């Protein structure tokens, strides 16, 4: 299916949003924070009851993005049709402005490995992922975004640079790219890549969303460090700098603050979103200035 035949693109504004977690359901319902949009993990709303009741109310006030973490686009054995259908049902109820998944895999031999595992960057992986993105876009009758991963290892038979892999998926399927700037920073550090080169290689027209998050640094025995994408702290200065670079290349793009471990009070999350919002406003101004010139 061509992207033109799918549902219209995101009404999510090019402003800052927050990842909504259960800990903040009540606070969001109580104070209706001044934030442009929210994103939730699709898998957390597959049942009924309280979570869905909160989301039903919150979606009336904010555009919602559904971010999947378990579809396993890179599974060699195909997508789990039951999971795909669960996602479709959540989307039918929530009517999200955006839907996204990851360039990763988590299911093999009928076992869910509860993590976003790295793919070998090969032609076979590329064709598997593209087939599955096509399948998802057909099933959902809409365009999705796919997120670049954060990884801690690489495989010896990988032949395609990750940024080329991301670009090829977008080109072949018409999907968009969810550019996780923190993931680029983490993976670049862990694998000795140049983060700016990675950013520069992504096709600006395909970028539909940006993610920002904190990560931790683990010292290794050999004196080096490994960066772990644990979403458990504030965005670090180097990632903010890379984010500015991304906005310079892509223009203002809807940007999400994610925080999943040691979730702080809502105000802390909103503070991070405000910072992203200020940088987005700058980028907006620069984009307008460039147009006038």
């Amino acid at each position, binding site marked *: 299916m061509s992207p033109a035949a799918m549902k219209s693109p995101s009404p999510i504004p090019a402003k800052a949003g927050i990842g909504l977690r259960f800990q903040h359901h009540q606070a969001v319902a109580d104070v209706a924070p001044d934030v442009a949009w929210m994103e939730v993990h699709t898998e957390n709303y597959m049942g009924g009851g309280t979570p869905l009741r909160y989301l039903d109310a919150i979606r009336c006030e904010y555009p919602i993005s559904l971010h999947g973490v378990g579809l396993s686009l890179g599974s060699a054995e195909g997508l789990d049709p039951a999971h795909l259908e669960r996602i479709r049902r959540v989307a039918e109820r929530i009517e999200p402005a955006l839907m996204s998944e990851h360039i990763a895999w988590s299911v093999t031999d009928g076992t869910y490995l509860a993590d976003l595992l790295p793919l070998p960057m090969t032609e076979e992986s590329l064709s598997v992922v593209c087939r599955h993105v096509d399948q998802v876009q057909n099933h959902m009758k809409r365009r999705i975004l796919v997120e670049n991963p954060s990884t801690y*290892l690489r495989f010896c038979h990988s032949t395609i640079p990750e940024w080329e892999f991301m670009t090829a998926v977008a080109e072949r399927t018409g999907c968009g790219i969810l550019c996780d700037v923190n993931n680029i920073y983490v993976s670049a550090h862990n694998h000795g890549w140049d983060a700016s080169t990675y950013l520069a290689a992504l096709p600006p027209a395909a970028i539909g969303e940006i993610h920002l998050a904190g990560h931790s640094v683990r010292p290794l025995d050999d004196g080096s460090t490994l960066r772990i994408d644990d979403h458990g702290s504030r965005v670090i200065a180097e990632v903010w700098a890379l984010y500015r670079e991304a906005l310079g290349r892509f223009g203002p793009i809807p940007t999400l603050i994610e925080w999943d471990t040691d979730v702080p009070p809502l105000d802390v999350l909103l503070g991070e979103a405000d910072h992203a919002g200020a940088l987005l406003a700058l980028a907006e101004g620069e984009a307008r200035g460039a147009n006038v010139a």
Partner: protein
Amino acid sequence: MPVRFWHWLRGRRAVPTLLELQRAMRASLVDRDDGAAAAMLAENVPPDRLNIYRNTFVTGVTKALRLSYPAVYRLVGADFFEGAAGLFIARHPPRSAYLDEYGTDFPAFLRDFQPAASLVYLADVARLEWAVNRAIHAADGEPLDLTRLSALPSEDQIRICFVPHPSISLVRTDYPADVIWRGVLSGDDAALAAVDLEAGPVRLLVERRTTGVEVSRLDDAAWRFATMLCEGHPLAAVFIAATDTGNDALLTEYLAAGRFIDFRLAPAEFSVHTTPPEAVS
């Protein structure tokens, strides 16, 4: 196995297919067998990086179990729970990414888990917690519109087979799992001290109401009646099997409480040898 051996092996291997790689990673994460996966890593990637993914897998799934079994967690303590969960996860890894549904086999695992044998009631508490977990996450369901029942010709009413709300479970335990569960989660030591393990079986109705999940005790007759209704037996069969008085009131209560979301009619020949119950509308 020395790392150098794997580097040698890498050079010997044909390029693995994606499926081979994913099965090798599964063996590493679930079965703790790193051999095949380590041989596929890029040259300067130390095999202990696989530990990061294994730890994420085990801690993530253990956390899902802990959220579903909070009273079991408190009864046995963090270390014991993590040990038991680790063995359980290796034997019953999750089948789907919908982790709220993960852990259905944990009560049976605990029942047969020798190190926990002295806590005779542990598996019963786990079974109750699984029913509570199911109630928390069950799909929403609108209560049955009672006018649909009253619109049925009276001769058809005996053929009604109810569809219970998906949050409902009926649980029978040998020990007073409800009192232990409440006592543990509320830290009520007095209630726990008063538990009589010899008091005999308890029969429980677990359901999600608008105010939250409720666990209530039923007497034997009410439990049998409710079980037959919720298993979808035709009303005639339910009333024949459950001869106690008070069943009409019980059925009215269940309908009023919205415990059924739909019904179907058993085949017509079913009614030949049965007596119609009281009108249900």
